[in-house]
């Protein structure tokens, strides 16, 4: 029986059981979401690997790494600004926490814009969900699915950053909410670390 379990006159009661792992409920909920989301992304990336391995004419359409390198730099830097915002929130610096949270959101917007620009470029070259000029049509479906799923996470994260930042500034949320949101944002960054090599770098045209 864990320390969290308690007894009332010798009987075990669930009413006074503390949160699992002594982690606050909101934070634990975010971690469970992250674990579940890890499964989603992992399934997508493994399915992508499955298709790539099983297709003889898998295309290598990327000629430059500049765009994806800049996107990676922006996302990594946004993780750092998120941490700075959290530190400010913990120190009670509301203005600083709000400012850094908004800078993080701005970085997310920039990342999304670069992503959309890249998509438009590929679409302009003739790539769709089902066909492309370079090889198997499966490439477009897997590329847009994986990067689209990630982009939707970034977009959701940006919205959440703005909402939580504004509410934190207004006094409705506290540093704990910034921390929970930070977990999500770092996770989005973490997923990108796998998307870049698997979807972009392994498909560079040499």
């Amino acid at each position: 029986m864990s320390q969290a379990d308690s007894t009332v006159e010798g009987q075990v009661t669930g009413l006074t059981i503390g949160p699992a792992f002594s982690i606050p409920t909101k934070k634990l909920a975010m971690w469970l979401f992250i674990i579940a989301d890890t499964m989603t992304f992992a399934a997508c990336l493994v399915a992508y690997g499955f298709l790539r391995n099983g297709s003889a004419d898998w295309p290598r359409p990327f000629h430059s790494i500049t765009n994806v390198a800049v996107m990676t730099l922006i996302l990594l830097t946004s993780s750092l600004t998120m941490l700075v915002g959290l530190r400010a929130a913990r120190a009670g610096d509301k203005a600083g926490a709000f400012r850094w949270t908004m800078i993080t959101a701005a970085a997310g917007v920039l990342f999304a814009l670069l992503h959309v620009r890249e998509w438009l470029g590929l679409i302009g070259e003739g790539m769709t969900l089902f066909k492309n000029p370079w090889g198997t049509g499966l490439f477009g479906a897997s590329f847009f699915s994986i990067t689209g799923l990630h982009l939707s996470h970034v977009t959701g994260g940006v919205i959440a950053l703005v909402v939580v930042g504004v509410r934190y500034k207004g006094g409705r949320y506290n540093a704990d909410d910034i921390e929970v949101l930070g977990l999500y944002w770092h996770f989005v960054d973490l997923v990108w670390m796998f998307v870049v090599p698997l979807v972009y770098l392994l498909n560079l045209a040499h």
Partner: protein
Amino acid sequence: MTTVDERKSNGIGKDLAIYACLLVLAGLQFVIAYQKIGAAQMFGRMLTVACVEAGLAALFFMHLWTEKRGFLLFVAIFTIAVLLGLQFGWTDSTRMVVGAPFSK
């Protein structure tokens, strides 16, 4: 909300160091992409670097390192079990390559 808390407060210096490490590792992936090696070897190297990056981000940016050890183990075991479970499809993938998806 902090957990085992303030033992993790080492200032912004540690965060900057981890950020720098992540940048270097991300750069390393780009260097690997231009190496003259086979696709399988390149995939292995890139995945290894990505796992190190993810580990650093999870442990230090997401503060997993300073959570209760039980929670760290829970996350690690659960995640690794799922990732390993997803690997059962590779044999089918190989069958597709040789054009025999339903071979015995």
